[in-house]
């Protein structure tokens, strides 16, 4: 993989939480443009979504380096701001702005950050709502929507910034089972369109179908990674084997 092919380059990241829990232990991962990397997590669950949160500066790393699309995530305000603008994130708990309608949620960053006119923003918003399939809820408030609908709005809101990378932090874990499908469908569409995605999930079906590469992680380290087909068909590590045997 050549240097400009890599959109995310995380080298030897270390992160220890104040309690002494090691979340990331010299964690190294590079992601190609347009690649969908699915991170699945072993039963112990440590290092959970910390990696994603480090990628856009939500968590500070204790060691190592992160470069996103050629921009180093260092202590320069400008670089950090640029990275925040180029990396979209979808949370387990949606985090929509409850005092704004669906439309306003999606308009906000377009107007404030991308400096679009209201008309331009409104146009993008409606096309994104069409993409996630909830145009009819544009003027509703988040609490009037189901969990699945809220998460689809959250995806549309992140997409409104036209990010180069989308991070999904257990996006379906807080949803009722019957709503998981509608959110995964949107994520599949995005993957098919060539969006670079890093997805932390427990949904093995989605990982198999949409993932280009699987990373199996435990205790802050990569246990095994590989092309999706190879990973599921012939896991090399004993630990991966045992884990897949348990859940498949």
């Amino acid at each position: 993989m050549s240097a400009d092919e890599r959109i995310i380059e995380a080298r030897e990241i270390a992160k220890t939480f104040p309690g002494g829990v090691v979340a990331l232990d010299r964690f190294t991962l590079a992601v190609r443009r347009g690649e969908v990397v699915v991170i699945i997590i072993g039963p112990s669950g440590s290092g959970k979504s910390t990696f994603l949160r480090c990628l856009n500066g939500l968590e500070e790393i204790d060691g190592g380096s992160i470069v996103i699309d050629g921009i180093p995530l260092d202590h320069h305000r400008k670089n950090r701001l640029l990275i925040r603008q180029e990396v979209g994130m979808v949370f387990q708990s949606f985090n929509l702005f409850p005092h704004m309608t669906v439309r306003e949620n999606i308009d906000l960053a377009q107007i404030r950050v991308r400096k679009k006119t209201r008309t331009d923003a409104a146009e993008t918003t409606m096309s994104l709502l069409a993409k996630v399939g909830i145009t009819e809820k544009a003027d509703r408030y988040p609490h009037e929507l189901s969990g699945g609908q809220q998460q689809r709005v959250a995806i549309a809101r992140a997409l409104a910034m036209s990010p180069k990378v989308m991070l999904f932090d257990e996006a379906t874990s807080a949803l009722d089972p019957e709503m998981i499908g509608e959110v995964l469908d949107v994520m599949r569409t995005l993957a098919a369109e060539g969006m670079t995605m890093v997805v932390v999930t427990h949904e093995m079906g989605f990982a198999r179908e949409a993932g280009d590469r699987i990373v199996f992680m435990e205790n802050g380290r990569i246990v095994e990674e590989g092309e999706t087909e190879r990973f599921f068909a012939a896991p090399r590590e004993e630990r991966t084997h045992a884990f897949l045997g348990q859940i498949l």
Partner: protein
Amino acid sequence: MKRGMTPLHLRSAAASRAALIDYGKFFLLAGLAVWLLTLGTRGMGYNWQWYRVPRFLFTTEGGVWAAGPLLQGLWVTLEISLLSLLCTLILGLTAALFRLSDSFTARALARGYLELIRNTPLLIQIFFVYFVISPVLDIGAFASAVLALSLFEGAYAAEILRAGIVSLQRGQWEAAHCLGLGLFDTYRDVILPQAVRRVLPPLAGQGISLIKDSSLVSTIAIYDLTMQGQKIVSETFLAFEIWFTVAAIYLVMTFGLSFAVRALEHRMNGFPIRGAGGIA
């Protein structure tokens, strides 16, 4: 019997009986209060002269309506209160943001201000501003009064606003962060609208305190409502009539503010205070 098991028609009868008893209690207490008041005033042999009060409110000599000293005082109190309220909110917000800032200097500054103001009496602060600071800044009594009141109430408003801001879920900050919003936009569009909505009731209480506390500015020769009352009492000895009237006027003002805030709260009810925006 469990409440949920009571048949519906019986429950409504029981509910209306409970309401009736409740009203009964209210009138009993009100009657008791009036009785005590009459007893007390009769005991001290006070000669009530309510008929002399209206001309201190307004006069209509020669068919021309003119505000009496009490209404003139009311106007001064209103001016001071409204200006101070505005400055209180600005100062309170600034101090709250300073306290939450990453900068040590800003935090220390806010902390010093809050501790100094909240741990000294307002009356002394008013004197301090009027006698020490106003000659330096070259401002008059009125501006001194507004400054002192705003500094005082601003410290309390700051803590109220800070409580509202930190009560929001971390996810709101994180979502704004991930959208690339700057600090100013995050506060203006995401954090403050929700925080203010949450702390509107205690903030209104602070506004009411401000109106009542403004009576202390009478000590620096400002002819507000309280000062006018004092003057009339010393000239006419109508102590109880005038003070009761003054208190009633303050009551009308504070009620007015409460009412306005409640109307505002009602209008902001487009979204629930808690539990919105996904799981907690």
